[in-house]
């Protein structure tokens, strides 16, 4: 099924990415395992608590897959939502299967307070536990709501991230930064600035995601399959290499005020033109220049 990943719901993404008729949902909506916190607060619940989990095949590779629904509370992680992802990762360790996370989340579901904070930290721990056990965990980001807060940390714990240009990845989201530090620090309504800072192309150039794809289900499927195959073990050496990379980044770009400054310093011939470059042309150039 070809089609936009960005426009799709969590369920549509799963059916668009996995092999035909291969998806079997775990804890499906009919089981009605909803958030007790939202019920207590008199807020609407969702029968899947905003995350669809199950088993499927991606280009004939058996996988466990989760997809967060950004439309429901911005994909925020509550207690049940988080437990479904953690359970999936633990199952992956038992069954020795790779895990695919179709992430779309603003982070912790603040209405669930400590339960939400614990849930998202348990997701991070489960990802690292799975990787330590040699299980590949790969993530995709390409939805309307992006990936922020605790889930921004969680995906950075994965083997690989596949993004589209439309995808956004960060820790504090644009509006959070503006609220905390003022509009002079970051104007969250300046969409071009937002994408230059947290958008897919910048994340690729700075080395935060493994690859960048067009906003297309097939492109995401092929790239996720390749990421699973390329996933290596989590060792002390890989962690140290990641830390060294981050130190070099800070040293090299710590003074940059804008994505464009970083692209210029990487040697991109026309930094202002980066957002307008087609993905394939962008990738040809970016592979040579990106910060490794």
């Amino acid at each position, binding site marked *: *099924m070809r089609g936009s990943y960005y426009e799709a719901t969590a369920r549509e993404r799963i*059916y668009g990415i996995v092999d*035909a008729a291969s998806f079997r949902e775990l804890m499906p909506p009919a089981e009605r395992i909803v958030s007790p916190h939202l019920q207590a607060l*008199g807020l*609407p*619940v*969702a*029968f899947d608590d905003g995350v669809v989990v199950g088993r499927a095949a991606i280009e004939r590779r058996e996988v466990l897959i989760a997809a967060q629904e950004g439309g429901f509370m911005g994909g925020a992680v509550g207690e049940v939502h988080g437990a479904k992802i953690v359970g999936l990762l633990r199952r992956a360790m038992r069954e020795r299967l790779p895990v695919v996370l179709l992430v779309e989340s603003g982070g912790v579901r603040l209405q669930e307070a400590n339960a939400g904070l614990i849930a998202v930290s348990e997701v991070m721990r489960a990802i690292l536990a799975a990787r330590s056990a040699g299980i590949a965990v790969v993530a995709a980001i390409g939805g309307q709501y992006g990936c922020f807060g605790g889930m921004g940390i969680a995906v950075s714990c994965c083997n690989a991230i596949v993004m589209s240009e439309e995808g956004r990845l960060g820790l504090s989201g644009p509006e959070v930064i503006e609220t905390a530090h003022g509009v002079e620090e970051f104007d969250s309504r300046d969409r071009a600035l937002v994408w230059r800072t947290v958008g897919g192309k910048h994340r690729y150039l700075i080395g935060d995601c493994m690859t960048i794809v067009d906003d297309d289900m097939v492109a995401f499927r092929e790239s996720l399959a390749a990421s699973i195959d390329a996933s290596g073990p989590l060792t002390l050496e890989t962690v140290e290499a990641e830390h060294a990379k981050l130190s070099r980044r800070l040293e090299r770009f710590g003074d940059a005020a804008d994505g464009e400054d970083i692209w210029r310093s990487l040697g991109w011939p026309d930094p202002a033109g980066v957002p307008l470059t087609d993905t394939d042309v962008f990738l040809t150039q970016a592979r040579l220049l990106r910060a490794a």
Partner: protein
Amino acid sequence: MEHLHYRFMGGRTMRATRPCIVGVVASGNLEVLIEPAALQGACTVDIDTAANGFGVVWEAVVADFFSRHPLADVRISINDNGATPAVVALRLDQAVVEFAAAAPTGPTA
């Protein structure tokens, strides 16, 4: 939040064998879960809605739906986050289309 419950009799049983869900509990939207259920020939609709005080409108929309799709032994459950009546009617129709197409194991997108 308000809970509403409706029950209709005199519909026809569908051959669908498994639950389907359509829609998302996003702002101005809703999810509709439709399931086969042994209800002595009844079709029930349970609604949890964030918008209080619209029972009369819901009743009209749901009764209109049943007149288009007289179902029996079907349970419909709705989580609503302020969807307009037109959106509700479209989602209900979409749920029936998915439900009718639901093979025992095939996917629903």
